[in-house]
């Protein structure tokens, strides 16, 4: 083992303390104090000091023990389940789907649990949608929330202004969002990687800013309220039927309960999410899906084989956007109220984090990541303020241990081996 390098450790420690102090000064040091008459600026010198000390000493110790530590973190000894048990993924998928279907009828499933599960499913669906763009086609999209917003506003406006039903608006919302996907796709055709990420991020913000400022059309920051709830073949989920309608409870001779609507909404999003999943699984085995993956791997090679990158990219953007549009209109009908607040950049970041954490291109990985990133914070509401911290921490750990995501094993979409065996 190498000798302890004290000067270096001291230098690292002092440097760390200085950086920590510089960061802590604006972030921890200043605070607004509400002194009955006016707000005044307070200063917490001790907090800055503690931050600098903790970081400085920590860095010093880390630096001291650096030679004793292994050069880099050992790859997490997680076996590659996908590779070892090729069928496991299939069973896990069916198991999860089956569990999701019976969930609302389980004894412990109360209204709030179903509600949380609905939220998780929204993100699962968004993750699956973005997975087409990022995971399959390899186009880093940081503005995915824009399509979610387009879907939500499409339904909200069509329903409140033109009185169209949810089931009619759902495909329309998907169509509009897909249209926006193509509209975004055109200007960014030549971009890749970081550049693409920045432009899509800008696009997401543009859509939000337009929603916020186009007062006449979108009602600006105040948003749209009283968005109609979906019906089941014309049966409403209200306590008293509106004129000319029947309620679900009356029709089936049940006692009215608010739970019915929650469960109904849950099944809608479950159906939408499963549809997204089946679509993706299917399209991965079709020419267009394989072209997306080929484009992710090597665009030049694609061109040399006669694949037109323009149509392939646009179709990926449009397809991903379409699913975001579906999810958006569901979000609008579930909330009954939407405003630009719901479609900030952080939503895009969460969805992207779900895809990256899950393992690009992995369908079940997205479910696990959505449970982790959206489900857990819902159960630990008190810790809400640490959510972003946990988020960042989880990302750093994943990138260190499993840089390709929780589940990253990719199975070929077609095999010769199977045919030979059969």
């Amino acid at each position, binding site marked *: 083992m190498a000798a302890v390098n004290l000067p270096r450790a001291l230098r690292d420690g002092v440097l760390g303390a200085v950086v920590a102090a510089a960061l802590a000064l604006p972030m921890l040091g200043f605070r607004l104090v509400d002194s009955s008459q006016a707000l005044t600026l307070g200063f917490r010198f001790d907090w800055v000091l503690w931050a600098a000390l903790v970081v400085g000493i920590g860095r010093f110790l880390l630096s001291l023990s650096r030679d004793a530590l292994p050069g880099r973190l050992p790859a997490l000894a997680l076996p590659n389940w996908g590779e070892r048990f090729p069928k496991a993924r299939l069973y896990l998928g069916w198991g999860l789907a089956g569990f999701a279907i019976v969930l609302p009828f389980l004894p412990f499933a109360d209204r709030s649990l179903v509600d949380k599960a609905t939220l998780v499913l929204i993100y699962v669906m968004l993750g699956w949608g973005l997975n087409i763009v990022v995971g399959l086609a390899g186009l880093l999209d940081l503005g995915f929330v824009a399509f979610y917003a387009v879907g939500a506003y499409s339904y909200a406006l069509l329903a409140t202004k033109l009185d169209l039903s949810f089931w009619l608006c759902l495909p329309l919302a998907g169509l509009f969002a897909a249209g926006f996907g193509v509209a975004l796709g055109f200007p960014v055709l030549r971009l890749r990687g970081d550049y693409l990420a920045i432009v899509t991020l800008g696009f997401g913000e543009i859509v939000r800013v337009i929603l916020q400022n186009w007062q006449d059309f979108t009602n600006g920051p105040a948003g749209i309220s009283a968005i109609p709830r979906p019906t089941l073949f014309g049966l409403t989920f209200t306590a008293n039927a509106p004129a000319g309608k029947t309620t679900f409870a009356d029709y089936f001779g049940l006692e009215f309960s608010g739970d019915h609507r929650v469960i109904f909404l849950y099944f809608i999003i479950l159906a939408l999410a499963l549809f997204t999943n089946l*679509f993706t699984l*299917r*399209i991965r*085995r*079709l*020419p*267009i*899906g*394989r*072209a997306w*993956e*080929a484009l992710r*791997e*090597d665009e*030049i*090679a*694609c*061109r*040399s*084989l*006669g*694949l*037109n*990158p323009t149509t392939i990219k646009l179709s990926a953007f449009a397809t991903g956007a379409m699913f975001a549009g579906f999810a958006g209109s569901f979000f609008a009908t579930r909330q009954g109220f939407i405003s630009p607040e719901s479609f900030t950049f952080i939503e895009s970041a969460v969805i992207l984090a779900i895809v990256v954490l899950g393992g690009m291109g992995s369908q079940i990985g997205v479910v696990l990541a959505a449970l982790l990133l959206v489900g857990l914070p819902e159960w630990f509401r008190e810790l809400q303020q640490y959510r972003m911290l946990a988020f960042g921490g989880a990302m750093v750990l994943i990138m260190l241990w499993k840089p390709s995501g929780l589940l990253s094993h*990719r199975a*070929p*979409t*077609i*095999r*010769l*081996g199977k*045919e030979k065996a059969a």
Partner: protein
Amino acid sequence: MSPTPLLQVEHVTMRFGGLFAVNDLSFTARPRQITAIIGPNGAGKTTLFNCITGFYKPQVGRITLHQDQGPVYLERLDDFDIAKKARVGRTFQNIRLFARMSVLENLIVAQHNALMRASVFSLAGLLGLARYSKAEKLGTDKARYWLNKVGLLHLADEDAGSLPYGSQRRLEIARAMCIDPLLLCLDEPAAGLNPRESQELNTLLTGIRDEHGIGLLLIEHDMSVVMGISDWVVVLDYGRKIAAGNPAEIRADEAVIRAYLGEPDEAEA
């Protein structure tokens, strides 16, 4: 020699700033022949390929591919249309496979346009119509044929990126063949191969020429390959053609020896 040329390159000039990478170059390549393009490093060979396959647009000149239906002017087409409509296939000097897709998938992607037509832009496939599965079966059969040809059948389900170097080169050739090309452009296919692999490559290429009636354009530094299998050799230096002829003529050409081959015995290899 067959009378009609397959590829006609006329007065092609490709400039990068002040550098003439290809300078007023003219030559023809015939069907069912292997035409080798040789020359020192930086002579403009890869640039010429990029002009033929549409990745670069030459400032001057015309590139014509003669199909049965009539001539196609390649310099007017987009790169992907050159592969799709003119049916010119190519490989790359630094291999470009779809590394994280399986060997078989690489070959299936190469048949994208045919499969797209068969699946009505994937819609028939989405609905699970038999029409698509039949087309995919044909695609798999073609892939199996070429995998067998290049000796990679047993690795069909492996990731393309995990193959050894020589196999990757052969896979890239198989993939280019899956677009059913009339002309196949190979950029240094023997680079990095051991002598045995290089010998197998010769067999593969002459097979492609003789059994499939395809014209080949071959950039190669390995003289055993060039002299062994090519029917016609074009020598470039500083973007210009300094000689053209059959292998024996080229081997004896004073200008070629000066610029590229060096001592005659070195050329034997």
